[in-house]
């Protein structure tokens, strides 16, 4: 077939092979990678300490705490939905773990297990409510966001009498759990927080699922064309519920880190973080309308956040400017992504 096909292909200008560069431009991550390189260069120049191994370790740690959530949130957004409860869900997960351990047993693993089940149940609640009612996920998760915020504060006050939980540092299993969720490892002479490994595992799993499994095909499909997906037999409801469970799993990992890093949990934490996760996913090339994006892009988006938040400190700027930089970067990255996509489509 090749001979005839090639000769015919040569006659048709539209069948010219795409250059590797154009292939690269077609990737959703490109905007975020360019942005990350720019941010890195800026801080490498203006902040003397930025390039030291210790500083980079701090940057990676900051990126990982956002990235563990940004990656599943990106998958959810590719599937066409939001989760505004993602930020406080982390706190809820930590609180449940801490309070179950403290009130009912003296072993932290019980709390960790109960917390996993309870956090997944919250994700399941979001997903089932969404698929059963057909309401916009913005409304449903805004509801769970407010409810969880209230429950976090209310239950903590009710049980411990203050706004924070009691320390669980003296309980059985604490050192092992701390090693798993909040330790520092020495890898080839570099001090690396264990969350970085969780983050990398999350990226690898999400990318594998997204690009190489049937579920990944379905995630793109339910976000890019729900009715079309349903018409060809894609289990739309199951896919969306699965995505909410993914976010819940991320919230559980983040929550356990929060707990075992500080021994106590502040009940008011997490509010506003959901928008940072969404911003990281959008910087990473996720479309707000769904059906397009990448887990690696979201991870790079988280890396930009990490570099900015720590870079400002290393550059000895007033950290109050942080949010402004983030907002400007979100807009710039989104515009860059838009521009790249238009160019890619125009020159294809």
């Amino acid at each position: 077939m090749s001979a005839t096909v090639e000769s015919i292909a040569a006659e048709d200008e539209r069948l010219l092979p795409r250059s590797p560069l154009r292939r690269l431009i077609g990737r959703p991550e490109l905007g975020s990678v360019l942005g990350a390189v720019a941010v890195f260069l800026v801080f490498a120049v203006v902040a003397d300490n930025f390039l030291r191994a210790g500083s980079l370790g701090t940057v990676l740690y900051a990126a990982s705490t956002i990235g563990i959530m940004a990656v599943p949130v990106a998958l959810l957004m590719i599937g066409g939905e939001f989760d505004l409860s993602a930020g406080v869900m982390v706190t809820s997960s930590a609180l449940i773990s801490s309070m179950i351990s403290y009130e009912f047993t003296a072993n932290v693993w019980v709390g960790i297990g109960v917390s996993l089940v309870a956090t997944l149940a919250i994700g399941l609640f979001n997903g089932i409510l969404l698929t059963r009612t057909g309401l916009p996920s913005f409304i449903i998760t805004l509801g769970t966001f407010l409810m969880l915020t209230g429950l976090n504060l209310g239950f903590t006050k009710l049980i411990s009498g203050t706004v924070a939980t009691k320390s669980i540092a003296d309980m059985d299993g604490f050192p092992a759990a701390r090693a798993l969720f909040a330790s520092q490892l020495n890898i080839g002479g570099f001090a690396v927080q264990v969350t970085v490994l969780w983050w990398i595992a999350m990226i690898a799993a999400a990318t594998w699922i997204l690009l190489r499994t049937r579920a990944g095909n379905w995630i793109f499909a339910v976000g890019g064309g729900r009715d079309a997906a349903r018409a060809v037999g894609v289990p739309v409801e199951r896919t969306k519920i699965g995505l909410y469970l993914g976010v819940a799993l991320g919230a559980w990992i983040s929550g356990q880190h929060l707990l075992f890093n500080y021994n106590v949990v502040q009940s008011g934490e997490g509010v506003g973080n959901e928008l940072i996760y969404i911003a990281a996913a959008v910087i990473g090339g996720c479309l707000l309308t769904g059906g397009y994006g990448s887990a690696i892009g979201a991870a790079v988006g988280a890396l930009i956040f990490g570099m900015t938040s720590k870079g400002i400190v290393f550059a000895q700027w007033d950290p109050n400017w942080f949010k402004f930089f983030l907002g400007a970067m979100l807009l710039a990255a989104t515009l860059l992504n838009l521009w790249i996509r238009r160019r890619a489509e125009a020159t294809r």
Partner: protein
Amino acid sequence: MTDANDPRDPAARPAAEPGPTAGRTAGVPTPADDANDLDAPADDVNAAATGTPLLELAAVSKHYGNIRALEEVSLTVRAGRVTCVLGDNGAGKSTLIKIIAGLHRHDAGVFRVDGAETTLASPRQALELGIATVYQDLAMVPLMPVWRNFFLGSEPTVGRGPLRRLDVRRMRSTTRERLLRMGIDLRDVDQPIGTLSGGERQSVAIARAVHFGARVLVLDEPTAALGVKQAGVVLRRVAAARDAGLGVVLVTHNPHHAHLVGDHFVLLKRGAMAGDHAAGEITLDELTRQMAGGSELAELGHELRRAAPPGPDSDE
């Protein structure tokens, strides 16, 4: 693509001549030179046409509350034949499609698949019986690559357990090969399907239905939103599917397109049968006249002529 209406179009050749690697694996015969017999009756499949119909609707009715959407409509679909369903907006074409596709159940009458009476409970059941419906929106996700769309919902996998993964190599090569057979040479199956032309998307949808073992292909207004050339491309795919031995139901409001490929014409009007003709029995003019409602069209023409201001190139 070069001129789609030229039967000697060289670009259409590879479709009829799959190379040594392009296997005849799925049990579907290779389309026999689809480019040349667009209008000619398919003599080579006459044998198939005399057997049990693939699909038969006898006096099928459907009511939505007190609205009679479909009233005693009969229709026969045979292998290697194109049955055209013609009708204006609101004639009941969509209802008919929904019954055949398994989205709605009929209220009265008999629905037979391979001679056995059936009531379809779901689109999935229709698919399992080999009835594939290509809707106007084509059930495609514009941002997804062609190969992902092609296999969406029925993705082949390799490996087991957590290593179970998409058979990407096979998905890409099958997509390419299947489209090549349809006469579409896509160099890059990675391009989002939204970047293909309307006719190409229709062709991908038809190729997908054929690949997944469709015996009856139901096409809902496949040429409605297309230009003349693109419509020609799609009609050629319809002919190719027919020659591959599929029974085709072509639902359209365009008698010109129907007359080009149809072996049988069923006319619907206000949910009821308004005509039932074999290809030899009716001319294009007569088909057009009947479809447009005969005297109504004459009346409309009369009205419009009187209303139009006299211009330099007017006949009167």
